């Protein structure tokens, strides 16, 4: 077998996705009652391309009065139209949204990468098609809900408030809006302040789909806007995806009210490699687990557990593979690792790198070139990490991997479960009985065996313990949006 020449020049010519066909307005208003409406506080904030630090557009900041207006519009639409039309007509609207996303998929993908910094390959192949698939899947549920909840009578909740993060802006909007509409609710959605653009483009598209005014409202802004939504007395349910700290605040806010609540919060997933795993595939799984979307993934495989007998080999192959990752222009089709979503997030990640080094951990970073402008973090791993290390305990939300080793199955299960989080986990082994032992005993809502970071509208997603409660996707996800009698 020919030896690979590791010194060969692997620099690829730039292959940037064209932005000619993309139209971004200078300024975006709030989407309330079917119309784009100026914010009552007349305040706007800038949204920045994290790869260039250039301002892309100005986004309206919704205050309490705007949120109130949006909730009233949603209530009116619920009472007047959405709860009255037949389920099969509701389904058709949602199918339409799915189709319109597919038609404009490339535009959405480019804007997602411009605004959020994620590689175009991911926004094009994962975020946007999966968002369309979520609408398509849930559309079909609208007139079949009685089959989802046998023996029970199903009714919608009313107006739902939804707050989403910046890591998968369009996809999270789809995860939230699609099941809410299919079950007959109306929506007020608040996107994350650094990534509002695709949600506002989605608003245009929802208008084009002819959805009745007020069925979907989109209010942009930061934490204060979200708080106004969670505190609004006429909201029947809050669905939140974001950090565990904010999730706890929301749970406290909602306590004692009749609001329903689902939380999809942080994670610190264990990705476990056994000695009998197919090591090459496992290394790909580690890479995908932690560097997908720059590690801005709540279910990222940020704690790697390698069985001692293969630790040296995995370490060598992993570092080799990491060196081949291309960091840079998110719009370049060759890019593997894009820009960190915001300056603030980069500072957070860097503070963890400093803490890790201060703890005396061994840090490895690839030596790929980093663009001068923009927010970047090289793929990073820490080895010799103790369970007590901050790098192993806290969610970093960046391309930073903590490596630990183990000897026995029981040991790794204990270590993997020794965290307040419980969103996801990965297991790599060729032995089926071992997989089922692990998948049964890992306290995590999603377990990927011999794969990682896979998502599908039919597959329920959500956490154990402090990673939140409730599921999104699949039949199980519908339950969060209905009253059962």
């Amino acid at each position, binding site marked *: 077998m020919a030896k690979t020449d590791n010194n060969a020049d692997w620099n690829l010519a730039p292959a940037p996705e064209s932005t000619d066909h993309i139209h971004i307005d200078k300024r975006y208003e709030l989407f309330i009652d079917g119309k784009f409406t100026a914010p009552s506080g007349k305040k706007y904030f800038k949204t920045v391309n994290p790869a260039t630090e250039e301002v892309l557009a100005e986004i309206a900041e919704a205050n309490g009065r705007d949120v109130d207006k949006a909730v009233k519009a949603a209530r009116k639409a619920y009472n007047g139209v959405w709860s009255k039309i037949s389920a099969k007509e509701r389904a058709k609207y949602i199918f339409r949204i799915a189709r319109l996303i597919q038609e404009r998929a490339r535009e959405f993908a480019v804007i997602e990468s411009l605004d959020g910094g994620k590689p175009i390959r991911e926004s094009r192949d994962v975020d946007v098609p999966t968002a369309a*698939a979520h609408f398509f899947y849930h559309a079909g549920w609208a007139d079949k809900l009685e089959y989802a909840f046998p023996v029970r009578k199903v009714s919608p909740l009313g107006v739902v408030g939804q707050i989403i993060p910046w890591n998968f802006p369009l996809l999270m909007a789809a995860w939230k809006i699609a099941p809410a509409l299919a079950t007959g609710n109306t929506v007020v959605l608040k996107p994350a302040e650094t990534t509002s653009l695709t949600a506002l483009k989605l608003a245009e598209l929802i208008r084009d789909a002819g959805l009745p005014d007020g069925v979907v409202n989109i209010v942009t802004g930061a934490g204060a806007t979200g708080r106004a939504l969670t505190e609004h007395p006429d909201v029947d349910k809050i669905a939140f995806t974001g950090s*565990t700290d904010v*999730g*706890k*605040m929301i*749970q*406290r806010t*909602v*306590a*004692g*009210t009749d609001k329903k609540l689902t*939380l999809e*919060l942080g994670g610190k997933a264990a990705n476990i490699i056994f000695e009998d795993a197919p090591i090459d595939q496992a290394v790909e799984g580690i890479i995908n687990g932690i560097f997908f979307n720059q590690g801005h993934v709540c279910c990222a495989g940020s704690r790697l557990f390698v069985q001692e007998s293969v630790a040296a080999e995995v370490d060598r192959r992993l570092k080799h593979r990491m060196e081949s990752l291309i960091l840079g222009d998110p719009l370049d089709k060759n890019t593997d690792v894009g820009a960190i979503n915001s300056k603030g997030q980069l500072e957070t990640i860097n503070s963890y790198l400093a803490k890790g080094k201060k703890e005396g951990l061994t840090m490895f970073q690839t030596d790929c070139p980093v663009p001068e402008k923009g927010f970047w973090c090289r793929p990073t791993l820490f080895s010799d990490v103790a369970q007590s290390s901050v790098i192993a305990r806290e969610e970093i939300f960046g391309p930073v991997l903590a490596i630990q080793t183990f000897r026995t199955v029981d040991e790794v299960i204990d270590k993997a479960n020794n965290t*307040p989080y419980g969103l996801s986990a990965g297991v790599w082994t060729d032995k089926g009985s071992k*997989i089922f032992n692990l*998948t*049964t*005993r890992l*306290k*995590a*809502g*999603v*377990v*990927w*065996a*011999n*794969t990682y970071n*896979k998502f*599908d509208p*039919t*597959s*329920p*997603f*959500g956490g*154990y*313990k*402090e*990673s*939140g*409660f409730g*599921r999104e996707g*699949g*039949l*199980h996800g519908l339950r969060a949006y209905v009253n*059962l009698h």
Partner: protein
Amino acid sequence: MATKKTQQITGGIDVSKTYKIFIGGAFPRTESGRYFDVKDKDGKFLANMCLSSRKDFRNAVVAARKAQEGWQDRSAYNRSQIIYRIAEMLQQKRSVFLDEMQAMGHSASRAQKEFSDSIDLLVYYAGWCDKYTQVYGAVNPVASSHFNFSVPEPTGVVAVMAENGSALKGVIKAVIPAVCGGNTAVVLASENFPLCAVSFAEVIATSDVPAGVINILTGKRSELQHHFASHMDVNALVVWDASASARMELGQHAAENVKRTFFYDSAETDAPGPEYIIDLQETKTTWHPVESIKGSGSGY
């Protein structure tokens, strides 16, 4: 010591029972040494119940946590038989429970109805143990080449405040759906009718229920509820018949570790159902690749 006037044995005085609490399969009195007394409908002394402390609760949570994995690992069939066994053991002690309920003020007919409802509840949930995973599980038709399935799994340790208006049925409603689903439970019995909960613990102790799976405390809700809600190693909180203000306060405490929190109203929810099991379950979804033989070009 409790004195019992209803069944005098000829030629001697009764040997009355000291009512204890039930933690980790053992029957201690409260570590605090405190008590509250229960009187019959005529105001005569019945028993000195344990006024359980925060420390008792914490001990019970430790016992429940220790027992949880083993209980979850029991086969569903085995859990089902154990819960059925509780019904068997309870049935033969019918007169004990009827006496206790009547001593606490139940009419004879109310006591009989509550007892037979309690038996029915146990038998009903015994049957659910090996069925709810099929009803609530799924194989999910994902669009990629993966086998993907979701199953309900127990949340973990559940802390429950039983309803106040019931002597026996309330404590069964409080714990059985939780343990049916592989959770372990710590329950605070009805403050008004606490005797039967302790006698029920004695039934559990002889029903092959592993130690720590069900832990029963007596005491004051007002004293313990905040600890139930804020304990960091409790995964779910269930409170029957909470006041509006308690819902808010306990809900806020429960947020500290993102507890699953359920407030049930005994007046509204008389019919049993699998929902009480499912509320205390997590959905776990597992993915595994499916080899695409055609796609890979290999063949066998």
